[in-house]
């Protein structure tokens, strides 16, 4: 990944700029991993972290995502009292998590809250791929479930931005059970007749795909995002051949009937607000 290389080059700067370390683009210049164009970082950020040259959607931190979606100053975070757990007492796990928190200034792989989107109130959960690849352990499952339950309690629409490498392996079976927990909570949400919009971003895989990501009343995706249950490498090892170009990308899922609409990041906020308005009880 080109962005990873850029990150390495700027390691010193990264340490200094702790606050911004959670973003994918660090340093003044960045090379687009799609069109190879050298881009001025500020231009990219002003353009919703989309390559101004080719339209490639770069990965976003939860913090930046919330800024793009929620009305200014409207996001009130919930679930900050829920922290990482270590059910397996897995060697070095909590230490690694603590070090990561310190380095990235991110609390866990999801941020949840209540906010307004073009004036429409909603519960918003945003996963963060910069924290252990957005993997779902107990903390992510608990926070997502709290977001679902808050949405039920307050009779608000629910929006979840997904990005995940899958289950948090270090939490073993407890991480697997978060799939059941979040799906059961969405079953309740569904019975209540409330709106749930799931937004899939690059990459959404594994246990998150096999639970809440796939259960939206409406499922949106960003362009060119990798979305699947099994990762491409696992599939290639299983079938012993290379996967065709574009396999498991947003456009492929749209073609196969598993998402409703691909939405450019620059339009995302307006599309979400419109969908919420269309579901308002008159």
């Amino acid at each position: 990944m080109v962005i990873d290389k850029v990150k390495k080059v700027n390691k010193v700067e990264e340490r200094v700029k702790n606050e911004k370390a959670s973003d994918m683009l660090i340093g003044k210049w960045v090379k687009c991993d799609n069109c190879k164009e050298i881009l001025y970082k500020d231009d990219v950020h002003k353009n919703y972290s989309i390559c101004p040259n080719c339209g490639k959607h770069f990965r976003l931190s939860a913090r930046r995502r919330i800024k793009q979606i929620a009305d200014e100053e409207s996001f009130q975070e919930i679930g900050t009292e829920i922290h990482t757990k270590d059910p397996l007492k897995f060697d070095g796990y909590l230490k690694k998590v603590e070090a990561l928190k310190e380095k990235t200034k991110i609390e866990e792989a999801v941020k949840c809250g209540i906010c307004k989107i073009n004036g429409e109130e909603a519960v918003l959960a945003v996963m963060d791929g910069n924290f252990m690849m957005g993997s779902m352990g107990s903390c992510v499952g608990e926070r997502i479930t709290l977001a679902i339950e808050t949405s039920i309690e307050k009779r608000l629409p629910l929006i979840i931005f997904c990005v995940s490498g899958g289950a948090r392996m270090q939490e073993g079976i407890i991480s697997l059970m978060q799939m059941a927990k979040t799906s059961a909570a969405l079953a309740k949400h569904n019975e209540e007749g409330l709106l749930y919009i799931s937004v899939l971003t690059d990459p959404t895989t594994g246990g998150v795909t096999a639970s809440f990501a796939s259960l939206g009343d409406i499922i949106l995706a960003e362009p060119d995002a990798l979305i699947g249950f099994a990762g491409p490498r696992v599939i290639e090892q299983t079938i012993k051949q290379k996967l065709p170009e574009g396999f498991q990308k947003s456009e492929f899922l749209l073609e196969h009937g598993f998402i409703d609409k691909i939405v450019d990041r620059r339009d995302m906020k307006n599309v979400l607000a419109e969908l919420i308005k269309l579901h308002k009880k008159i």
Partner: protein
Amino acid sequence: MISAWEKVSLARMAERPKSLDYINEIFTDFIELHGDRNFGDDKSIVGGIAKLDGMPVTVIGEQKGKKAKENMERNFGMPNPEGYRKALRLMKQAEKFKRPIITFIDTPGAYPGMGAEERGQGEAIARNMLEMANLKVPIICIVIGEGSSGGALAIGLGDKVAMLENAVYSILSPEGFASILYKDASKAKDAAENMKITAQDLKDLNVIDDIIEEPEGGAQNDLSSIANNLKKYIIKSIEELNKLSVEEMLQNRYEKFRKIG
């Protein structure tokens, strides 16, 4: 004491009874029903209607083969989306006709193939869990061998979740876990010991409700005795659940998964 790794070997043993062995031993008049009414019939999941001491029930199980040929036919017990969708169809049918549901879990995981992805493996697993959370009939889930990943959980959300004494239930195989976290698949044995995958571990973590005792040396040594233990357990569980109102049962089912970790 049998180690976790030894249990992995026992759970995967070719001679170990598979879903159909238990179905034929515990129930009578089993009629297998096929297909998801959408794409095809996945032979890695079997299901149908049977009688349990005279009472009609719906039974569903992930089915591995015992010999090479059968294993190929059964895709080694790794379901495709149509398998989970067949299971869901049969569970909805059970709800319509007010039959309790019994599922047997035994899989190395959901199949990671191209077709599986094209047909929405993730969606199929997710949909099953969402629907199972609300089915208005008792659901008893039993891990009889290998319960691995979302592929197991897709038929594993129930009012009672039990494991056979030597079964294992995990996020993924110890080999997969070792290759990801230890960067060395040959450390599977160490992984198994650290992953908390045995029935006792999972009972301690409140992930399962009960452990069903196996005969000395493992289930393969005495099918009729273990089937008898299972039958008693299933009957007792259904009787217990029948005492609850549907609302109470669903609330308990929700709480059970809500409070895990």
